[in-house]
């Protein structure tokens, strides 16, 4: 398993260290992600956010991987990958809108190729292969990155996608976040396989297992995979070994299927604190400079929240919008029906 920092922040593979500016930026992005996750819980309890799947504890798995992309690349995130989407540049306000069940959360910025969070499991994996092939066909060096969970890697779509990507040498990077659980089902019940990165072997593509709580390690292996894909070397499967310390969703009760002891050891592996210890120890960050960073992040979030608050609620007839480029006669009739009902 590739690791750069030990859980206490000491460097175990100095040759993997990215430049100081990159390390600092990864930290900032992880903090932004964590801030979203933490504020999200509060907003949920206040009724200002709907049910959402938290990802706290998985920041290194999402930020370190997505940070290896540029804005020209594709991102296919699952519902749990808010951190990855924010890292690529999805505006916080849009993300809040999504988890507020607002259609404004489906309006992706024109300069980003990120899809709305996928709710059905695994279905986005073959789509990423198609997007990757399309980029190659168009002669670009852009790649597609798709996320999935350990549970999702049981679905047929996952295996078909890996096989297609290998056979067609698609410039694809597959991130398999092994966070230990698929709702109540632990990975050992999910599969007899103990090293999910080895699934790549069956499809003739490289598989990498990385410490998913080490942002420097996830960044390093993902950048290598992205480079390989860009330069025609084909797809890679990266298994980030991490843990879902939080419940499946904010409405889930994990005490039904796991004990506190199951989770306890993972707090000591916290990805944010790990990089923090390294940055402070290496003199790349001081407590005051960190405090300033956190203050900026908080201000940015509150401004985004205000923006999300300003998005108008959808109107009833909007539920029929965007089904086809040109509404069918049936849709036109149904729209008239909704408008008439509104008047009544």
């Amino acid at each position, binding site marked *: 398993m590739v690791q750069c920092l030990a859980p206490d922040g000491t460097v175990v593979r100095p040759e993997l260290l990215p430049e100081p500016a990159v390390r600092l930026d990864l930290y900032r992005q992880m903090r932004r992600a964590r801030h979203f996750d933490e504020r999200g819980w509060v907003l949920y309890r206040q009724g200002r956010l*709907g*049910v959402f799947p938290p990802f706290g504890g998985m920041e290194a798995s999402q930020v370190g991987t997505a940070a290896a992309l540029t804005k020209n690349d594709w991102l296919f995130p699952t*519902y749990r990958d808010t951190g990855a989407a924010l890292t690529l540049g999805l505006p916080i306000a849009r993300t809040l809108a999504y988890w507020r*069940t*607002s*259609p404004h959360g489906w309006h992706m910025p024109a300069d980003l190729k990120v899809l709305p969070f996928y*709710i*059905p*499991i*695994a*279905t986005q994996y073959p789509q990423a292969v198609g997007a990757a092939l399309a980029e190659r066909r168009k002669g670009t060096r852009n790649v597609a990155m798709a996320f999935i969970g350990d*549970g*999702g890697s*049981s*679905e*047929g*779509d996952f295996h078909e996608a890996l096989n297609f990507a290998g056979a067609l040498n698609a410039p694809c990077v597959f991130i398999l976040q092994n966070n230990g659980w*698929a*709702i*109540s*089902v632990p990975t050992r*019940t*999910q*599969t007899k396989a103990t090293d999910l990165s080895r699934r790549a072997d069956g499809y003739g593509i490289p598989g990498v297992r990385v410490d998913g709580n080490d942002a420097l390690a996830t960044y390093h292996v993902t950048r290598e995979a992205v480079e390989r894909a860009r330069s025609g070397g084909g797809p890679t499967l990266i298994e980030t070994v991490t843990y879902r310390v939080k419940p499946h969703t904010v409405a889930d009760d994990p005490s*039904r*299927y796991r004990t506190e002891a199951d989770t306890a050891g993972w707090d000591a592996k916290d990805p944010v604190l790990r990089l923090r210890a390294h940055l402070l120890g290496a003199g790349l960050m001081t407590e005051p400079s960190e405090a300033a960073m956190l203050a900026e992040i908080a201000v940015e979030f509150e401004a985004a929240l205000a923006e999300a608050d300003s998005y108008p*609620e*959808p*109107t*009833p007839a*909007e*539920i*029929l919008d965007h*089904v086809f480029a040109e509404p*069918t006669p*049936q*849709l036109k009739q*149904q729209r008239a029906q*909704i408008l008439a*009902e509104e008047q009544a």
Partner: protein
Amino acid sequence: MTATATSTRTMTMVAAINDALDVALGADDTVHIFGEDVGVMGGVFRATDGLQMKYGAERVFDTPLAEAGIVGMGIGMGLAGLKPIAEIQFAGFLYPALDQILSHLGRYRHRTRSRYHLPMVIRAPYGGGVHTPEQHADSPEAILAHTPGVKVVIPSTPADAKGLLLSAINDPDPVFFFEAIKLYRSVKEEVPAGDYRVPLGKARLVTEGDDVTVICYGGMVEVVQKAADAARAAGIGVEVVDLRTLVPMDTETVLASVAKTGRAVIVTEAPRTAGFHSEISAVIAEEAIEYLRAPVVRVTGFDAPYPPFTAVEDVYRPNPLRVAKAIRQVMAY
């Protein structure tokens, strides 16, 4: 409606389903329950709560997260003599399994000239009204009803849920069992204990009336009842028919009621085009046109994906007002 049903207990629909599964597991050790999160957790809606504890992890077990695998494996179990009961976590997630369902589930008896048959039940929560995320509120029953060799059951009350589920489990052929999420905990009623059965293919007259027949099932029954109550207060006699099973459909009850009232309204929450409501309407047109005093009216969802937008979700799903309007419309024709 067997004689063993002696006492009753008040319960919710999800408790009644759990009770039916308990009875089935207790009565027949070929019965096996499997799916995502059905074991340790007892299902995301708790429909299988406590069953693994009681019957062991050989008979009630969590599968890997793969719907095609769940249904395909169940087909093999059924072919080899077990009684598989699979749970698909939400009906909107049965799509990965459609190959197994459309290509195989309904065809085995036919393609082996009854040498093999599939006594399989697939349970799936469906429908809206509870503000779920994308794709959790789909009503795909028409896809299944359009698949030869597959029965489709959709209960609307706790007692029916238990009685129909036990009939489904004891049916020699594959049965899809859709459970309206909205109804899981919103209603309670007396449910007979023990091996209580409600036969498949028999509709239920919810209320009787002389002026309009409203045909519905599952999550729409309580919506229709509210509209019917209001109409009755205004002097219109509404006969509410709860289909209970789409396949086989109790056309006799539907036609008898339409022959009596001369007016038909059909209510489902599925998209409008090519829904099961269209089938019901066609049957009425073919068999009872001479009784009709007004065109058949369908009240349905829309030809758009079910919206996950809390603010406007309730526009999609038919509500009592929309049903009441349809009733007025057929009365005024």
